């Protein structure tokens, strides 16, 4: 067993509990595209995918019923928050509070269907509620509004067919079929063609990656999204053993191996092949780790590589239990390695990223392991905001950012304060 693995999972679980409100998991979002630092209330987005899958894996490995209870409670959050349109409440993650987020709606379907399968196996009749909620979303949102005959579009008003978004729908449809849903092979095969069609050919550093076509002329190649495609293709290959799917996933695996760095994983590559040095992802790297674990039986992935990435994530955990998001988010897009104090957004642990680390680390737990409860502790870390030195503080109840120097003009040094579980911060001067 990897050293510190169980402790890290226990503390991550304790941290996730601090982020709950009666309506679900809350918290601000730091991301490459944009950050949502004001609205911090419940969002039914891809955070549920990692939380539910991670809890179910831990239930399977440890036999402890609390993990099944945690997963069930998360499923109830989702069902309670489904809208009449079939979409999920505030599912757009970094975009902010609005329904119809992609791939988030499909990731929530994956969560629900994985949960439904587990509950059905356990003889719990609640599985039908989870299954029906996912079916409704797939029918009324994905098939009715995003399907364009050749794949699933980003939004009804945005025709981009993004590989990782198609990959997540593909996973949801495979799970739906496996639970006895109507045959969806036409949609599944088309989504797979979208993925294959965006894969970079050749032998350069981008080879094997999927291009994020939503970035238009920038044509960014982004490992965490490629990782999600690789996981979906492996799932597809087990259902439809077409050699093209396996070959494509292996090429993605080779790309992912090149993206692993000593502090996390590379954000991506520009279309001219230059590596983007800022940010380096930390907690989002959980999806890369998960993909490497899924690919390992099918290609040469050194065990040491998986071990080392897992250790990087374990080492990044703060005493408050969360995993920082990145390093270098304040220098977004730079091709030079970042040195200096982390940006506030780097340190900020985000439920919708930490779930990915939680899920991947759970896969490394050996059967029969026992996970003891761990308390979270207060942390105080140096960071910066717009080059100003700041202090990041996190406790069980609060995340706070203050300037180290007293500002001129009588302004308060308090830049940000969010009381966990609340919908907006109490202080915001960013």
């Amino acid at each position, binding site marked *: 067993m990897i050293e510190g693995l169980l402790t890290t999972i226990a503390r991550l679980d304790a941290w996730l509990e601090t982020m709950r409100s009666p309506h679900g998991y809350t918290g601000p979002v730091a991301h490459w595209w944009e950050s949502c630092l004001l609205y911090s209330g419940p969002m039914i987005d891809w955070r549920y995918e990692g939380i539910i899958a991670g809890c179910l894996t831990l239930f399977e490995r440890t036999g402890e019923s609390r993990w099944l209870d945690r997963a069930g409670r998360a499923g109830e959050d989702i069902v309670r928050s489904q809208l009449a349109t079939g979409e999920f409440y505030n599912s757009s993650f970094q975009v902010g509070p609005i329904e119809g987020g992609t791939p988030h709606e499909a990731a929530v379907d994956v969560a629900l269907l994985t949960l439904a399968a587990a509950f059905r196996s356990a003889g719990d009749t609640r599985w039908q509620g989870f299954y029906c909620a996912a079916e409704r979303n797939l029918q009324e949102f994905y098939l009715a509004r995003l399907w364009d005959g050749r794949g699933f579009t980003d939004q009804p008003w945005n025709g981009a067919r993004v590989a990782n978004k198609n990959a997540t729908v593909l996973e949801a449809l495979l799970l739906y079929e496996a639970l006895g849903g109507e045959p969806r092979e036409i949609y599944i095969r088309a989504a797979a063609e979208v993925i294959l069609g965006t894969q970079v050919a050749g032998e350069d550093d981008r080879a094997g990656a999927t291009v994020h076509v939503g970035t238009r002329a920038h044509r960014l190649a982004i490992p965490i999204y490629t990782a999600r495609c690789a996981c979906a293709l492996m799932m597809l290959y087990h259902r439809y053993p077409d050699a093209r799917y396996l070959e494509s996933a292996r090429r993605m695996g080779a790309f992912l191996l090149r993206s692993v760095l000593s502090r996390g994983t590379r954000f991506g590559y520009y279309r001219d092949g230059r590596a983007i040095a800022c940010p380096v992802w930390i907690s989002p790297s959980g999806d890369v780790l998960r993909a490497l674990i899924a690919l390992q039986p099918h290609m040469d992935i050194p065990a040491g590589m998986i071990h080392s990435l897992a250790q990087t994530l374990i080492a990044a955990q703060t005493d408050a239990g969360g995993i920082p998001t990145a390093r270098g988010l304040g220098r977004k897009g730079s091709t030079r390695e970042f040195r200096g104090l982390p940006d506030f957004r780097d340190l900020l642990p985000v439920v919708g990223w930490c779930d990915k680390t939680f899920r991947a680390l759970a896969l490394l737990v050996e059967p029969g392991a026992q996970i003891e409860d761990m308390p979270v502790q207060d942390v105080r870390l140096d960071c910066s905001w717009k080059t100003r030195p700041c202090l990041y503080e996190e406790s069980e109840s609060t995340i706070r950012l203050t300037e180290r120097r007293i500002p001129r003009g009588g302004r308060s040094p308090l830049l940000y304060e969010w009381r966990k579980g609340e919908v*907006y911060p109490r202080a915001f001067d960013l």
Partner: protein
Amino acid sequence: MAFNPYMIETHYALEMAVFLLHSRQPASIRICADDPDVVRAVIRRCGWAAEVVVESPELIPVAEVYPMPANVIHAPGKKTDAAVIPFTRRHYTQAPPADYAVAITHNAFSYKSLLRPGQVEDNIVSMRRWLAQTHRIEQQIGLLAPGFIARWSLAAAAGPRFPALHFGWSQRAMDRIYAAGVGAWLSYVLILAGGRR
């Protein structure tokens, strides 16, 4: 112009406006808007409020699509703890009788009038005068101020040919999307807030 909840100036303005509302912890909020899309955009952010008052009975089912807030009513003339006036202040001769009001409007004294002269109908001076009739102006925050537009323009000029510059400048712009002081006077979108006189 049709309301688009995804536009940068729209959703960041609503975020700041509802943050200001939330900071006062009002139990009841009036949404001064009759466009269902605008009401939806505010409601999604107001799940924490005990009661939301809308401007017509037809808007109640629009709001009730969302699991929160629990209580959405139509009560003309009812005094609420707070009110939000999202891009609609020109429909009201005065701000509603709420203890705290947050209004969002477009400002003609901004870059937009250079690009499209005469198209922006409202401006900061008349907006301040309007709100000051009933409320003390305690907060004035602008979006898309000249500092933002300069950085955003550099990002656009860099484009995909110079992607590192493009993403770097676009982030510097976004990190300065909210402006106070002089910048707010020249912002395209303006948020004014304050307590009742």
